[in-house]
């Protein structure tokens, strides 16, 4: 089913063809998982959220506006599902997959890489999510704005500010003396 067009898959899914929807899942699971992880910062929760997002999207498929880009709509559904999970969890837990390093040990290239990773993934969600959508999903500022229901200018300032926060975190760790 790899060469079937997206629109056809959506139409077949609307008619109840679960195999077609399965193909949609195959095509978008990395994107949906990445988006959920950007909100939840936890692999197991992101996996649950990804599954739930695909189920929710299937349920709401009749309300998908064909004039919108499907991936952007799917990201919006995923963000809603992940944020609901976050609310149910009450407090955002410490990320389980990242750990702090002693600044004194942050001297090698490998450690620098880890430091950037930690700085990015410890950003507040409001900055982390646009960065992931921009750098991982490859969405434009306008698409992120639509997916997050924000103004494009707000997305831009969050992207710039997110990078500034990464820089300040790295300064805090003693990893960088340079600026964004």
């Amino acid at each position, binding site marked *: 089913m790899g060469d079937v067009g997206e629109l056809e898959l959506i139409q077949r899914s*609307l*008619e*109840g063809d679960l*195999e077609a*929807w*399965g*193909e949609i*899942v*195959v095509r978008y*699971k*990395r994107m949906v*998982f*990445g988006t959920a*992880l950007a909100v939840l910062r936890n*692999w197991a929760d*992101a*996996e649950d959220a990804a*599954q739930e997002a695909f*189920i929710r999207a299937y*349920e709401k498929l*009749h*309300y998908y*506006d*064909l*004039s919108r880009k499907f991936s952007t709509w799917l990201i919006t559904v995923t963000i809603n599902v992940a944020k609901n999970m976050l609310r149910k969890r009450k407090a955002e837990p410490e990320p389980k*997959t*990242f750990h702090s390093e002693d600044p004194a040990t942050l*001297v090698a290239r490998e*450690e*620098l*890489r880890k*430091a*950037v*990773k930690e*700085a*990015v*993934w410890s950003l507040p969600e409001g900055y982390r999510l646009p*960065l*992931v959508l921009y*750098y*991982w999903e490859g969405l*434009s*500022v306008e698409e992120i704005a639509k997916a997050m229901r924000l*103004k*494009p200018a*707000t997305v*831009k*300032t969050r*992207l*710039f*500010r997110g*990078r*500034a*926060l*990464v820089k300040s975190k*790295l300064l805090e760790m003693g990893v*960088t003396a*340079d*600026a*964004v």
Partner: protein
Amino acid sequence: MQFENWRDEELIRQAIAEEISAAEARLEGLEKRVIQAIATRDLARSAWKRWIRSVLSPRASALRFAYVLGALLLFVGIGILIGRFSFAPKPLPALAQEGTVFALAAPGAHKVEIVGDFSAWKPIPLVDPDGDGVWTLILKLPPGRYEYAFLVDDRWVGQDPNADEYVRTMGDYTSVRYIGGGSS
């Protein structure tokens, strides 16, 4: 090792990609789990129910309405923009010796802010006390190169007519000023 090549956004991209790719094994067979869950929840509705829902769906009429509304808004928006913003460079207030003046002509705007690396991209409001439509802010900045943009009623205005140069970052323009020893 110093983080010398910070401008290389590849490091951020890599940090994000690594974390997501590392969990890729978890996505194995996700499609089967989704299909199973949908089937279990009995979401696979019969064809006629789906047909009724699709007929009752607001998509068809809503789309037509959205196109008309979109065209109308575009028409009005262009009109407002043409009448509202003048990007012709205007003389700066004679206060430059107190700091660096950031000024933008935006008659009719309700709110003008500036974001830049000097404020870690947090918005700082400009003021227009005499109501002439020229919004200003004076900042005392140490010598250096500064990237910034204006937000006019939450709309990104990246090309300041008074800037020394423009750079394109993340799909849009930002302005650049050189303070002290530079061209400004």
